């Protein structure tokens, strides 16, 4: 399997503060990856490192097999839409396309015009007069029309209303269906990620908490509810992600490959939102999480 992005011990320090630390990831190609985490978790830092806007302080990063931002060939293979989909306010929609055609050797003019036609965007309109949704669509069109192998989108839908958000995601997924690019997008709207992503990376406090195929993660994470006294009798190969207690009952979020056979526990499936929230509520500090401790 080819790898879209591979990071080893990657870190970025701003002055005395680490924006990202000890990040080790291998994201396969051909996926639509959701990067989730609270504000300030390091999502934008990771994406800016991936497109070559930032240089790492520690560790190594390889994107599509090369170091980001080093050669023009590497730049040509990556499409990037920064946060809030910046466009040139004073330029028209058509000017943006001409600029795109000029600066990108692999520019697909037919694709760009077709997309804008479908969206009903008049090429003579100034970008400054567009709505937030239209501007985001224009920025996406520019990124898609350079026919990249990897699309990187930083919070592409955060500022859009629900209709514009759905339209944007449709446009993005159509682009993926037609051209098969890998996608990495950051968002904190988990419901959107559930629709479009098949791989998730959870980032909290500048560290990767969990990363993997969404269906696999959902199949191996469970919510257990049971009497508090049964808590100590759980098998030791469970990975405890989070827990809460009342005086009688324990509720645990665990990760395990095997089935949980103890009848004392009610086992429930998690959805993506539960899973992401569990990792966000109980972020781990160290690389290795301690196994479930057994005490009675």
């Amino acid at each position, binding site marked *: 399997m080819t790898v879209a992005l591979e990071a080893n011990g990657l870190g970025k320090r701003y002055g005395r503060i680490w924006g990202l630390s000890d990040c080790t990831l291998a994201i396969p190609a051909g996926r639509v990856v959701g990067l989730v985490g609270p504000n300030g978790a390091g999502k934008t830092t990771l994406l800016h490192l991936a497109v070559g806007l930032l240089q790492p302080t520690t560790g190594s990063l390889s994107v599509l097999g090369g170091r980001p931002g080093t050669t023009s060939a590497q730049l040509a293979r990556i499409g990037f839409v920064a946060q809030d989909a910046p466009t040139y306010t004073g330029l028209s929609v058509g000017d943006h396309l001409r600029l795109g055609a000029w600066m990108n050797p692999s520019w697909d003019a037919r694709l760009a015009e077709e997309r804008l036609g479908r969206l009903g965007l008049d090429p003579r309109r100034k970008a400054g007069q567009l709505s937030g949704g239209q501007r985001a669509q224009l920025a996406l069109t520019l990124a898609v029309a350079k026919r990249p192998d990897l699309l990187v989108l930083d919070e592409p839908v955060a500022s859009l209303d629900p209709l514009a958000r759905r339209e944007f995601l*449709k446009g993005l997924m*159509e682009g*993926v*269906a037609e051209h098969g690019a890998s996608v990495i997008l950051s968002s904190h709207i988990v*419901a959107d990620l559930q629709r*479009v992503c*098949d791989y998730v990376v959870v980032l909290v406090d500048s560290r990767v908490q969990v990363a993997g195929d969404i*269906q696999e993660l959902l199949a191996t994470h469970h919510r257990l509810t049971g009497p508090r006294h049964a808590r100590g009798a759980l098998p030791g190969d469970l990975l405890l992600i989070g827990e809460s207690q009342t005086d009688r009952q324990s509720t645990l979020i665990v990760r395990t490959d095997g089935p949980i056979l103890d009848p004392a526990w009610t086992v429930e499936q998690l959805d993506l939102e539960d899973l992401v929230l569990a990792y966000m509520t109980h972020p781990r500090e160290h690389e290795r999480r301690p196994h479930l401790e057994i005490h009675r």
Partner: protein
Amino acid sequence: MIEFHLDTRSGVPPYQQIVQQVRHALRLGLLEVGDQLPTVKEAVAAMAINPNTVLKAYRELEHLGLVAARPGIGIFVAKTLGDHSLAAHGPLRQDLMRWLAKARRAGLDDESIEAIFRDVVRSASAEGVA
């Protein structure tokens, strides 16, 4: 042509929802042999979902022998579900209604009735009866 929809709250994986919706349409006669399913691009545009999800569902349906891909054209229904049994639905439904009335007279609530039904279906298929 049918249109897919996605229920993100159901907990059923999205690709299985598509498989279920096709099976459902086949069983109800909404889809017949030779009908074309939405292209991956159409399905993706209708639901704003990941194309890999649609591809996975179509592969599963193909594996089940329900659809066949014609390269470059699209995915077509190859087999229907329950076409011969449609005529039998009426009388079977009536039998079940009678049984249901009996169960209610015996004091069972809906939850117990559904539990019995599921349990019997499961144990019957385990014994190879159904």
